[in-house]
Structures are given as structure tokens and as C-alpha cells.
């Protein structure tokens, strides 16, 4: 018996159909996307048979994790033009809830809930990026230099997060770059050849006209330098300078998700590179829980300082051009998180409101207890909680007159609260 078939989770929380009835202000398609992100997707053989690797976007391995696996799709389109950034979950026996199913019904690729026996939405696979077949002049496969979503290209200049250097100090929900966690693993080499690969891959990707709206960069944190993160700043600047060679303008749409840089470091990034927006993730909007869940960030920067660095960033980039990522729902992780979902929501939204007043927008990732994370066995919150959180964060943004184009349904696609900004 799997964990989810034994624990009776379905009888303990409102199902999707009742949630959309209870909250008519949430678009059903956005609620479905949240629920799929929360529970995952299992692809049936019939769905997998529909995948054509020459046509569809399949990843030969997970770029942001670093582990090898079978080439498989990493996301789906919904009929409103938004995306679900989730691939197949082949083994879900240990997950708290069983996933949605991607199946073929009446010749259509659809999301279903097998146990309920209901078809929810027709979906399509993403298309394969043209550059995935190419190699740089150094012989590097371009799909190892950059990854893509339907409208963004992603480059990770650093595949190691150094918060893990001190045992237990990485963020507890995080599975990113989990292939490079041991102390002596420095992550992948970034030598002059690699920067040349970045330039060539960027140039090649841009030949696919009409595809990319955003140049996305993120990486694990690099703590070294005269001031903490100085070396990370240097690495981003160097990577951007390599990519910039493919553009005719000094500034272009970059979505940088990085550590909490000091004002001096931010000013340098703004002055020396193409960036006009900036994202740094406080992850959990509560000082005590931040200390527990993100111990490295807490010890080396601290909650209040991280927050103030976001406010400093607003002074440089402007209101609405500074974005704070959160792992929505992780505030309910046990044993230290909120046991009551209403209390959790009230606390998170009060903090978001204060930050929103300072001009900071939010990008809410649906917390999923991922394999490779310390929280793999946690129970994530109810769908109702995630829906109220997305609606609440959208309201904070509207109330404070903020935009979130840098991290919206098109330039990212993984945040239900920013999907809601499509009609603002």
C-alpha cells in the first residue's frame, strides 16, 4: 500500500470541485494548476506514447537539479495559454497525496483525477527549443548550457549552492542543484570556454523568432568574496556580459533570481549589466520560521537584513520591479510551522502587505515536498490554503499598485498569484 492510499487524505480536505465552488473569484483553471503543482502528475503510457522527442520539449536530464533521468516533458500548456511546470512523477508511493493523471481520452491529451474518474482540462506538450539539437564551437551540447520554458531561456552560472557547505544549512524544502551538495563538489566548471558557450547558445536560441521573452538567470548562492556574495555578483556580471554580445541594446528583459545583494552590489549590477528588475527570495514570510527553514540564509544574512535588501533594491529598480519569491505553504511545515492554516495565512499576508507597501511584488511557488529535499516527507497544505494565498497575494499587489511582468505567466509561469495578474 502506498502512503497516500492509506492516509485517507481525500476525506480530510475540500476537493478541487468544492474549492472552486466556495471561491468563485479563483479561475478554475488556475485552481487546477495549483492542485496539479501540489499533487504532481503521473503520465500514463498512452500519454508518454504521445511524446515525440523531435517535436516536443523533453529534457534529457533535469537542468535545475543536475540528476540524470529518462528524457521526458517538463511541462504542459493549458488552454488559457498558461503553463504547468511539472513533468512526470513516476513514483508517488511515498507522497502524502496521489497525483493527477495525464492520459489520452477520446484522442485528447487530458488531465484527469483517476480516483474521481473525471476529465478536467485538455493540455498540450511544449515545443522543442531549436537550440537543443545544436552544439557550441567547443563541442558542448547547448542543452547543457541553457534550459528553456516556452518563452524563457534559463542559464545557471553556478550549479552549487554554498549554503550546503555547512551541514544542515541549506533550505529544507529545496531540491535545486541537489546533485552538487557535498562540500568538495564545486559544481560545474565555469571557465572561459563556458562563457563562450553562453554567448553562442544565447545567439543560437534567439534565432527561434517569437519564442523568448525573458533571459532568466539563477544559481545556487556563492558566499565568498570581500563582502558576502561578491563572487556571485562577479559571476552574474560575467555571464550577462557573455550573453549581452548577442543583443543590440544595452538593456533587455532579464529575470535575475539571486541572493540578497547589498545596495552597493545591486547598484553595480544595475550599472554594469542589462538588468532592469531583480528577484531575491525570502522564501518564508516569518522571521522565526525563516531561521528554521533557511538556516544558512538566516545565519549569514538574517531575515530583517534580507527584507531590507529588497527595500534597497526598490530604490534602484523601482516599485514593482523587485520581486520576492516565496515557497507558499512551507510555513505549515511541522513541527515548527503553523499548525492552523488560517493563522498561517493571516501571518503571511500581513507580512506581504508590509513588504508590498515598500514596493516589493511576490512570486508564490506552490510548495511540493520534493524528493531530494529535507522536507520530502512533509504534508503540504490543503488546496483551499493555496487558493486563498494566491488570491491574498494578488490583492496585496493590486492594493499597492504593483506590476509583476518580470515574473508573470509568460516570463516564468510557475506562480499562481502572478497568473492572476493577467487581468489586472
Amino acid at each position, binding site marked *: 500500500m502506498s502512503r497516500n492510499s492509506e492516509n485517507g487524505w481525500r476525506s480530510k480536505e475540500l476537493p478541487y470541485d468544492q474549492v472552486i465552488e466556495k471561491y468563485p473569484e479563483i*479561475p*478554475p*483553471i*488556475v485552481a487546477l494548476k495549483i492542485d496539479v503543482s501540489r499533487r504532481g502528475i503521473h503520465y500514463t503510457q498512452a500519454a508518454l506514447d504521445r511524446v515525440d522527442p523531435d517535436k516536443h520539449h523533453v529534457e534529457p536530464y533535469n537542468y535545475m537539479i543536475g540528476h540524470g533521468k529518462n528524457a521526458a516533458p517538463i511541462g504542459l*500548456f493549458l*488552454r*488559457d*495559454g*498558461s503553463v504547468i511546470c511539472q513533468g512526470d512523477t513516476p513514483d508517488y508511493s511515498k507522497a502524502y497525496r496521489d497525483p493527477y493523471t495525464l492520459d489520452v481520452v477520446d484522442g485528447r491529451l487530458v488531465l484527469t483525477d483517476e480516483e474521481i474518474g473525471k476529465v478536467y482540462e485538455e493540455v*498540450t506538450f*511544449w*515545443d522543442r527549443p531549436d537550440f537543443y539539437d545544436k552544439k557550441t564551437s567547443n563541442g558542448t551540447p547547448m542543452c547543457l548550457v541553457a534550459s528553456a520554458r*516556452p*518563452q524563457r531561456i534559463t542559464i545557471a552560472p553556478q550549479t552549487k549552492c554554498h549554503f550546503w557547505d555547512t551541514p544542515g544549512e541549506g533550505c529544507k524544502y529545496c531540491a535545486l542543484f541537489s546533485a552538487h551538495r557535498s562540500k568538495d563538489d564545486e559544481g560545474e566548471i565555469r571557465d572561459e570556454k563556458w562563457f563562450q558557450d553562453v554567448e553562442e547558445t544565447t545567439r543560437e536560441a534567439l534565432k*527561434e*523568432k*517569437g*519564442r523568448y521573452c525573458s533571459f532568466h538567470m539563477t544559481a545556487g548562492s556563492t558566499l565568498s568574496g570581500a563582502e558576502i556574495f561578491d563572487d556571485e555578483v562577479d559571476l552574474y556580471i560575467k555571464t550577462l556580459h557573455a550573453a549581452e554580445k548577442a543583443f543590440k541594446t544595452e538593456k533587455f528583459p532579464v529575470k535575475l533570481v539571486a541572493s540578497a545583494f547589498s545596495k552597493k552590489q545591486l547598484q553595480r549590477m544595475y550599472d554594469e549589466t542589462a538588468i532592469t528588475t531583480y528577484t531575491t527570495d525570502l522564501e518564508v514570510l516569518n522571521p522565526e520560521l525563516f531561521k528554521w527553514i533557511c538556516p544558512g540564509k538566516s545565519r549569514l544574512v538574517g531575515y530583517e537584513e534580507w527584507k531590507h535588501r529588497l527595500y534597497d533594491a526598490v530604490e534602484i529598480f523601482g516599485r514593482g520591479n523587485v520581486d520576492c519569491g516565496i515557497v507558499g505553504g512551507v510555513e505549515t511545515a511541522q513541527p515548527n510551522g503553523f499548525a492552523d492554516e488560517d493563522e498561517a495565512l493571516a501571518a503571511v499576508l500581513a507580512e506581504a502587505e508590509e513588504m508590498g507597501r515598500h514596493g516589493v511584488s511576490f512570486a508564490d511557488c506552490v510548495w511540493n515536498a520534493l524528493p531530494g529535499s529535507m522536507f520530502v516527507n512533509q504534508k503540504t497544505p490543503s488546496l483551499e490554503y493555496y487558493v486563498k494565498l494566491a488570491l491574498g497575494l494578488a490583492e496585496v499587489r493590486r492594493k499597492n499598485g504593483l506590476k509583476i*511582468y518580470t515574473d508573470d*505567466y*509568460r516570463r516564468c509561469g510557475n506562480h499562481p498569484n502572478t497568473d492572476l495578474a*493577467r*487581468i*489586472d
Partner: protein
Amino acid sequence: MAEISRELADIINDKESLKVIATTDAQGNPHVVFKGTLHTEGQDLVFYDLLQSSQVNKNLVSSIWFGRKVAINILAKDKRSFLITAKPRRSVTAGRVFEEVYASLKDRNPDGDLNAIWYLEPEHIEEKTFAVRRAEEEAAFPILKHLDRLVKEERS
């Protein structure tokens, strides 16, 4: 679903026809805009939205989310007009088809951009040409007129 006749499809696809689309936002505020790219693809009405921040795009997203309808009016060059109520069926925001349309628009406007391809499913189609509507009204409701239109001419 209403069927688009061959004759109507030709009118919709005629570059000289005027095509307007009326939408509402979540609060019910109306919005109307001319959409020159509106055309038929099979039984779908399709048009290209060029600006992500456009009101028509926001209203269509809201309509596809919450199941609201939109109204379209087509005015042919011979002044025949047609009212179509439709439901947004699909928005294509990326992918091969999107890239093909993006490239074709670039031929016309090299500095242009594309936000979304909207696919609308017609639910009801009615001819609204004035002469046709007037004849219908006269036949169905002969009392709907000003009396002076019925005055007997005096002999001089």
C-alpha cells in the same frame, strides 16, 4: 455552437470588412475594439492580439477563466452586418503556431510583436443588416412605428 456559413466566412475573411469585438472585464465594464486580423479557421474565429497589456486581452483572459461570452460585429463592404456571440476557446501564447504567426506579422511590421492568438467559438450568429432587420421588425411588430409615417397624403 453556431455554424459559420461559407458566405459569412468570405465576408469575415475579406480585408475590406470591418470587424469589432466587444468584451467585458470582471466588473462588467464594456470595451470595444476593431480587430483587422479577425478571420476564420475552420469553425473558429481567430485573431491576433499584439499587446500583452491590452484591455481586450485582459478581458478575454477573464472570459476564458470565468466562461463569459464576447460579441463581434462584422460590417461587410456592401453594408451587410452580422452579430456573432462567441466564447473564447483557446489562447495560444507560445509554440510553433505562435512562431509562424509572429513571423508572418513581422513581414508586415518588422518592429511589431505578438501577444496571443485567440480562438473564439461562435455560439450564435444573426444578420443585423439594417434592411433585413427593418423587414423583420415590420413583419413581426407592425405597430412599432411613428404614426406620421402612415399619414395619408392630402389632395392638393
